[in-house]
């Protein structure tokens, strides 16, 4: 079970990898448990721990979002998944190091939200990102506060209500991706360059700056994330959402 999430620490740069490529790294409970366990192992004392944490997806996708397919019919599971994801986003926000999302491929729904919980989002022109929750009758309540912080309330409103997906290029234009490689292959070099640039910074300066920014935008607020999870779970339980999801997974 533990190999669903791996943690590699190479000097000042740590890499946390979602390792469920056959399911496009969809967040199942075991995968989420793995991520939380790896974060427990991450040294977080400033100057002793890494300065940079890269969050990556194994294989061709970054993360296809919450794994609803695996819990179809189990009414107790979605709230657990949602609370675990909400908790994960808050943990990333409250880490003292800079967290970089390396969006190598699809970042969908909660997967795109997870990227937005990171401090910096890197991607490539052809990656597919977005929030198709409303198309499935689902409310992207956990990710909404993160997207609002990332790109502003007006843009977040237009994107979350319209649903659908966008290319990496469009995500860069709207501010979801901070930096963009031309190709998937180019993302490795971009990510390495950014991580090394960040790692050269003073750990205390990084930690103090990040802490202030998180305080200012309120994004480390576990209670808000939890309310988002509760709301999302409530909408998931409506007939509208159930029908849409059943139709999607049946087809």
């Amino acid at each position: 079970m533990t190999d669903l999430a791996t943690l590699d620490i190479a000097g000042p740069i740590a890499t946390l990898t979602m390792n469920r490529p056959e399911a496009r790294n969809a967040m199942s409970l075991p995968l989420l448990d793995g991520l939380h366990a790896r974060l427990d192992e991450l040294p977080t004392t400033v100057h002793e721990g890494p300065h940079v944490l890269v969050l990556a997806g194994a294989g061709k996708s970054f993360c296809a979002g919450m794994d609803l397919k695996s819990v179809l019919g189990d009414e107790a599971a979605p709230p657990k998944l949602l609370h675990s994801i909400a908790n994960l986003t808050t943990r990333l926000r409250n880490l003292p190091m800079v967290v970089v999302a390396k969006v190598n491929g699809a970042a969908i729904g909660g997967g795109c939200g997870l990227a937005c919980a990171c401090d910096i989002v890197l991607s490539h022109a052809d990656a597919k990102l977005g929030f198709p929750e409303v198309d499935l009758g689902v409310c992207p309540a956990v990710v909404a506060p993160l997207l609002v912080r990332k790109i502003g309330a007006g843009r977040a409103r237009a994107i979350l209500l319209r649903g659908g997906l966008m290319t990496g290029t469009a995500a860069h234009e709207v501010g979801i991706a901070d930096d963009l490689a031309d190709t998937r292959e180019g993302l490795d070099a971009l990510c390495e360059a950014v991580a090394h640039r960040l790692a050269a910074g003073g750990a205390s300066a990084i930690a103090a700056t990040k802490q202030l920014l998180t305080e200012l935008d309120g994004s480390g607020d576990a209670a808000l994330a939890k309310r988002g999870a509760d709301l999302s779970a409530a909408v998931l339980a409506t007939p509208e959402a159930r029908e849409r999801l059943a139709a999607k997974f049946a087809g």
Partner: protein
Amino acid sequence: MIARERLGDIERLVLSRPERRNALTPAMFEDLAGHVERAGDARVLLLLGEGTVFCAGFDLDLCVGEAGDGNLRALLEGLSRCIAALRALPCPVVVGVQGAAIAGGCALLGGGDVVVAHPEAKLGYPVTRLGISPAVSAPFMGIAPGQARRLMLDPGLIDGHRAHAMGLVHELHDEPAARAMELAEELAAKPPHALAATKRWLNELSPANAGQGLDVSLSLVGSDESRRLLAAALQKK
């Protein structure tokens, strides 16, 4: 002067006073607010302007003379009520901006969830030079606070490209009204409860204190400065 039509699940409202560049009167706000408040069963609300201009803002001819202060007050209250009603509507609001959206016309965009504009459309708040404060629409600004500051304090206008770059407009198109209709049809086909829950949550995440902004704008009505600047501006016209 507000043309209303129900097209399937889409409530289409059009500012229809093209001979006056859709300049807004208290009666138009009354009609617009009423239509919006009664559109609760629509799946999407589409807001457009007739003619070449989306909306030139308040009809300033009404804001001078004996009834001037009362009319300006009614216009500010009407504007605030309309934006708040659009924001409170459970369904998404799509706005198509085919031409200039000035002052009160630009403020209406604050009630839109998805705004499509022509790249050359002119937008902005040239109102402090009339002694009027655009504070009434500030609570509904979805752009970064630093950019809102400039937009509301500087009476200069920006074009669609710039508005898109700052997030005031979400999509540029050469045929904004037709594109807005397309987007409305797309949204009308989406699950309504998920849309309503999402919009409600977004409203909660960025609470808008409409009264606070309105009070600031109202506090200036009837001041010597405001009367003098308004009269001077109308004389020049």
